[in-house]
C-alpha cells in the first residue's frame, strides 16, 4: 500500500506529503506526474511529482486544498495509506542544450516549478526564478528556490511579500535589463501562463508551459485531457504535460478546465460538511 511517510503544511491551504511508492520513485523525473485515489470510491486526480527519493522509495507531492479529493487527502495523516498511486506519467522536462533559463511559477504551481529549477541547477544550468503569490501567507518553497537560483524574484499581488505586482512584470524587467534566456519554463494558473507566454513571444524566447487539465487514466486512453497546440489536438497525459507555450490555445484550456466547476464546488462543500460533522 502507499503509506504516507511524512506530512507538512506549507501554508494554510498547501500541504506536502511523502508517499511510499517504490516503483514510481524508481523512475520519476521532474516534470512528470502521478495519479492518486484516496479511497476505494475516490476519483482519480493527477498531481505533479515535487520530489522523489529512489533509495527510500518515496515520492513527494504538494497539493492545494481546492476540492473534495484534496480535502480528503489533507485529512489523512502519517501512517495512513492512499488507496491508489500510479506513475510516473507523462514526459520529463527536457533540458538538452540549455545554458540559462528563467523558471516562472505561480501559487501552488511553484511546487512543480521547484523540482524543475533544482534539476536544471544540478545540471549546471543557470537558473533565474520568478515566483508569484497572492500574499505573504501563501508563499511556499522560498528558501528552496533561493538555493537553486542565481537570481530569485518574489512577487505578490498585494505587496505583502517581495515586490508588488505580477510575475510578468518581474520577467519583463529581467529581459529588459538584458538577461538572455535560452528558455522560459512557466508553471501556474492558466491565466498566468497565458500572459507569460504572450510576453515571451514578444521577445521570441522559447517557452514551455506545464499543463494540468482534467484527466482520468493518464495513459492516453480517455482523451479528456486533450488540448490544442499549434492547431493540433494533443493529450496532456502522454504528449505532455509540458508544451510549447507559444502554440497552446489557453482560452480553450481554460474553458475545458471549468467543465465540472459546479459539480466540484458542490462535492467540496459536501466533503467539508462531512468533516465538520466528525470533528
Amino acid at each position, binding site marked *: 500500500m502507499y503509506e504516507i511517510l511524512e506530512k507538512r503544511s506549507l501554508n494554510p491551504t498547501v500541504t506536502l506529503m511523502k508517499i511510499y511508492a517504490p516503483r514510481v520513485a524508481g523512475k520519476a523525473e521532474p516534470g512528470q506526474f502521478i495519479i492518486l485515489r484516496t479511497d476505494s470510491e475516490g476519483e482519480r486526480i493527477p498531481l505533479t511529482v515535487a520530489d522523489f527519493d529512489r533509495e527510500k522509495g518515496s515520492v513527494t507531492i504538494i497539493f492545494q486544498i481546492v476540492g473534495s479529493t484534496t480535502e480528503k487527502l489533507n485529512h489523512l495523516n502519517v501512517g495512513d495509506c492512499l488507496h491508489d498511486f500510479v*506513475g510516473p506519467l507523462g514526459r520529463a522536462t527536457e533540458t538538452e542544450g540549455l545554458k540559462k533559463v528563467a523558471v516562472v511559477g505561480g501559487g501552488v504551481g511553484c511546487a512543480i516549478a521547484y523540482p524543475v529549477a533544482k534539476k536544471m541547477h544540478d545540471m549546471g544550468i543557470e537558473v533565474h526564478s520568478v515566483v508569484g503569490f497572492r500574499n505573504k501567507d501563501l508563499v511556499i518553497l522560498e528558501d528552496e528556490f533561493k538555493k537553486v537560483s542565481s537570481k530569485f524574484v518574489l512577487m505578490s499581488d498585494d505587496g505583502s511579500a517581495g515586490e508588488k505586482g505580477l510575475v510578468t512584470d518581474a520577467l519583463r524587467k529581467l529581459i529588459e535589463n538584458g538577461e538572455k534566456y535560452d528558455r522560459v519554463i512557466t508553471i501556474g494558473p492558466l491565466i498566468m501562463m497565458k500572459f507569460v507566454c504572450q510576453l515571451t513571444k514578444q521577445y521570441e524566447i522559447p517557452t514551455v508551459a506545464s499543463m494540468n487539465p482534467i484527466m482520468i487514466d493518464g495513459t492516453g486512453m480517455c482523451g479528456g485531457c486533450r488540448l490544442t497546440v499549434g492547431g493540433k489536438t494533443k493529450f496532456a497525459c502522454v504528449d505532455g504535460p509540458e508544451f510549447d507555450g507559444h502554440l497552446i490555445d489557453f482560452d480553450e484550456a481554460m474553458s475545458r478546465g471549468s467543465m465540472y466547476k459546479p459539480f466540484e464546488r458542490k462535492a467540496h462543500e459536501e466533503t467539508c460538511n462531512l468533516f465538520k460533522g466528525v470533528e
Partner: protein
Amino acid sequence: MGKPNMSLKKNEMPVQNPDVRNSNFLEVALGYTEEQAIDEAKRCLNCKNKPCVSGCPVQIDIPAFIAEVAEGNFEKAYEIISESSSLPAVCGRVCPQETQCECKCVRGKKGEPVAIGRLERFVADRHNEKSGQSFRKPVPNGHKTAVIGSGPSGLACAGDLAKKGYDVTVFEALHVAGGVLSYGIPEFRLPKSIVQKEINGLKELGVKIETNTVVGKSVSIDELMNNENFETVFIGSGAGLPRFMNIPGENLNGVYSANEFLTRINLMKAYKENSSTPVTAGSTAVIVGGGNVAMDSARCAKRLGAEVYIVYRRTSAELPARAEEIEHAKEEGIIFKFLTNPVEIKSDEKGWVKSIVCQQMELSEPDESGRAKPVPIPDSFIEIPTDCVIMSIGTSPNPLIKSTTEGLETQKWGGIIADENGLTSKKGVYAGGDAVTGAATVILAMGAGKKAAAAMDEYMKNNN
C-alpha cells in the same frame, strides 16, 4: 440422451422491460432458468463433426458441455467449458455467437440455432453462484512469467499459464483489473461483479495482479526480464487510444471520446448518486459511430436521462455492431440517423456544445473494407441541437509500450507485429489481442492469449 427437442426457435431469454431498463443500470438479459436451459440443451443434435466448435476461437467442446446440461450435470458442463475458456460468464454474455459457434449450428439451417451463448452463460453463472467449488492449486514449476494488461487476452493467457504451474504476475495500469471488461462494457451488459468473480477465480489459481503499474512508465519490459527475472512477457495492452474526427468544435465542453464517457460511467461509477467522478450526457446526446461501443455509449446516455441519437454515415445494413445490441438500443428508444456524417460541432457562448452539423451521405461502390462507400451529397446539411457529443469511431493501440521497448517491432498503424503463436520480434516477448490486431472482440483476444500461453509454455519448458 432422450429425444431431441425439435422446436425451431430458441428458448427466449428473459429480459428487463425496455421502458424500465432504459433508466437503470441493472443487467438487461436475465438468464435461463434450469428448466429453460435443459429444454434448450435438448435442441442440440450432438453432431459427430461438431461444426459449432470450428466457429469458436477458443475451441470449447460445445456439444459435450451441452450434453451435460441436458442431463442436468451443470458442474460437469462447467468443467468442460473451463478446459478451453478462462472467462465463460463473460463470453456467454459478450461473444458475437451469431457469427461464431451459432452460425455453424446445423439447427440454424432450418430455424434458429441452439442458443449456445445463453447456455454457456447459464453454466458459468450457476457455477459462480456456488462459489467455493474452486480448482486445486497447480503445482508450481518454478518459472516466472509476466502479463501486461488484465483485459481478455491477458487474463486468458495468465489463466492458462497458471494452470500449468507458472508463477504469473499480471500488471495493470488502472486501479481495477479487467481492462475493457471493467472500463468499457457497461454494467447492464456485463455486471462488474461477474468480471470480479472471474478474476478472483484466476487469483485462486495463484495469479498475482499488480494494479497501478503502467508498463513502459513504472517499469519497462527489459527491466521486468533483466531485473525481476520474468522469463517471458505477454503483451495484452489492448487498443485503448481513442480516435477523433478532427472536425471543428471537437474540443468543446460536452464532447467526449466513447472511452472517456464509458470509463467515467463503468470504471468510476459516475452513474451512481454520490459518485466522486462526474459525467454529463446532457438533455440530448449524439453518438457518432455504429459499432458495439457506440451502442454501449448510446444506451448509457439514455440511462443518464438524455434523448439519444446515433449518427452513422452508412445505413442500417452496414452497422458493425451486433444485431442484438442494435435491437436492444432500438427497443430502449435510441434514435438512429443513417447516412449522416458530422462536419462541425457548434458552441454556445460558454464553450459548451450547442449543436452538431452533419452532411447527408449516399452509398456508392464498395471501398477496400468491402462495404459500400458513403459519399457526401453536396449542400445537404442538417443541424441537430445537442449538449453532448460522444465520438465512437474506433481506437488504436497505445504507443506507450512500443516507445519504451527496444527491439519491439510494430506496424505503421501501431499494432505489435507477432507471428501466429504470438511471438514478437523480441526474444521471450509475446503479444496478442487488440494490441496486435487493432480493436476486435473479447473472444478473439482470449483466443490469442491462449495461443501465446501455449507457445510461452513450450519456450519456458526448454529454457532451464
